[in-house]
């Protein structure tokens, strides 16, 4: 039996990522089961070479429009580490706030726009405007909240312009932070409504489990996002300087994106990995949501990455409130608009490591004396998850292969989407091709 579903094609050009699932079953025997990916940001690394340290973060911001602030901050960290540039506590808090905003909007986007249609049995989000209008309004309002957070701090919700090596070109005004604080404090009902909706639909998530290695950052004082050391659920803490030994990138024949492995033949990054490694540091309201869904670390069902994202939405909201209150209590140290920190470029090498919506992100640059990039390496979360998606599929398919073809397809697509592969960076569409016998 052979069946091909082609969902490719867009008139308006986009940065195309392309992912395909190929399953080949012959007389009940699984012969081929591949997660095929075509795309990686390799070319951005090449484009960085020869550019000034003042523009590296603007270039890498364009790797992805959904996590542009993430790439910007990782890039700035790498540049600052290479040149020994320090960042003030105030600016570190503001960067954290910008990243929280982006992660909030990204999680809500994934839950509401990508995962929710799966759970209610729709092909896209459009029918939800008819069937779940109130819930959709909630999703869009929370997404807007994340954007507002990022925009107040960085000047734009996408491709931030105020972030620069050593700090910010312009700071938000305190009255903007106060408005934002009110907005955040008034958004808890929306988070509760999103949790209520997912609670009703959570039974639709397949009960599949496969233990793997979970890798994230960790920090002794907080649920790590912008600072910390690498943590593996298998071996514990690992210095950020050893990130290449963690993300042992390798090439497989069926993908132009690199795969990664560490202690086992694959590992997982993202919200569920962060939850598994750092759950005890969640804000109380986030921990309450985890309890409501029975999420108790370690969790080995990759489909529950969706629920871990919901838990993080609550955590990010709570932490954003705490950060803004701290900034307002201390008062913003003034600086002029279009401020440019004085930096004397020096030759050096630096690494940026942060947690972004889809997992831990590494940027490493080498600079020459003129402050121009001589070498760049970016390891994105989605590429680190490819191997784990592949191993999940190999374990899952034999257990569901007797199901109707459409059900197999749907379950596998949901698996891939549970990892929230970066729409812009890595996988844009899913083509599922059955080249063998499926029930």
């Amino acid at each position: 039996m052979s069946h091909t579903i082609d969902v490719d094609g867009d008139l308006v050009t986009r940065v195309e990522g392309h992912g395909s699932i190929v399953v080949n079953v012959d007389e009940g025997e699984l012969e081929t089961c591949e997660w095929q990916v075509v795309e990686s940001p390799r070319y951005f690394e090449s484009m960085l070479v020869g550019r000034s340290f003042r523009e590296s973060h603007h270039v890498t911001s364009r790797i992805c429009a959904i996590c542009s602030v993430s790439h910007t901050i990782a890039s700035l960290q790498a540049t600052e580490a290479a040149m020994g540039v320090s960042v003030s506590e105030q600016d570190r808090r503001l960067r954290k706030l910008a990243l929280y905003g982006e992660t909030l909007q990204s999680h809500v986007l994934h839950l509401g726009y990508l995962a929710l249609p799966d759970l209610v049995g729709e092909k896209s989000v459009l029918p939800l405007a008819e069937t779940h209008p109130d819930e959709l309004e909630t999703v869009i309002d929370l997404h807007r909240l994340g954007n507002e957070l990022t925009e107040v701090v960085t000047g734009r919700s996408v491709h931030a312009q105020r972030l620069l090596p050593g700090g910010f070109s312009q700071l938000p005004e305190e009255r903007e932070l106060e408005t934002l604080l009110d907005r955040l404090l008034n958004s808890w009902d929306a988070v509760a409504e999103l949790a209520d909706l997912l609670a009703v639909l959570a039974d639709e998530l397949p009960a599949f489990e496969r233990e793997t290695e979970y890798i994230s950052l960790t920090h002794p004082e907080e649920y790590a996002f912008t600072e910390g050391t690498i943590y593996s659920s298998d071996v514990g803490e690992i210095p950020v300087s050893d990130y290449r030994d963690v993300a042992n990138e390798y090439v497989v024949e069926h993908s132009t994106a690199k795969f990664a492995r560490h202690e086992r033949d694959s590992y997982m990054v993202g919200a569920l990995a962060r939850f598994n490694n750092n759950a005890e540091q969640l804000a109380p309201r986030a921990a309450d949501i985890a309890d409501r869904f029975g999420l108790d670390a370690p969790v080995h069902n990759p489909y529950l990455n969706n629920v871990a994202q919901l838990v993080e939405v609550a955590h990010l909201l709570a932490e954003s409130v705490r950060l803004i209150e701290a900034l307002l209590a201390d008062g913003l140290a003034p600086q002029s608009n279009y401020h440019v920190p004085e930096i004397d470029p020096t030759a050096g090498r630096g690494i940026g490591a942060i947690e972004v919506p889809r997992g831990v992100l590494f940027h490493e640059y080498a600079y020459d004396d003129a402050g121009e990039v001589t070498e760049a390496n970016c390891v994105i979360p989605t590429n680190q998850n490819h191997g784990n998606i592949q191993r999940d599929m190999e374990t899952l398919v034999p257990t569901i292969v007797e199901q109707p073809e459409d059900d197999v397809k749907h379950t596998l697509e949901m698996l891939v989407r549970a990892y929230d592969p970066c729409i812009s960076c890595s996988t844009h569409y899913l083509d599922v091709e059955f080249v063998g016998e499926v029930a």
Partner: protein
Amino acid sequence: MTADRAIVALGNPYRRDDGIGPALVDRLRDRELPTVDCLDLGDAGFDLVHVVADYAAVVIVDAVDFGGDPGEVAVFDPADTTEITERRGTHATDPFELIELGGGLAETATTIRVVGVQPAETGYGDGLSPAVAQALPEASKTLTATVRSL
């Protein structure tokens, strides 16, 4: 003066001609368009939903493969693009789906136009192709005229 219209650039400047949208918006920032916000949304993000809900009229500018000659400019209403409608149904971020979603949630109807420029190259790299770079002045005029007509 509060803006009631928006020009939205979609596209990636590091994918050659896909950067035509941001390039055109950069050219327009200093023009006299007092009730128009110029926004660069990069790759088609979910923000389109908010933009469609927030403005009375939105002009999207992007590289569009409509089968024309490289650099050729076309203005169209997304509601007329039946081919795209037929290709929907994935979970990809389809800008037209986002427009429809935002329009459905807006309190009043939003007028949408797309100013599309036929690309020659959309591979990795910065800088527009010669054919598309030459089309910048004409595309800029078309974009300005389109937003003023709404």
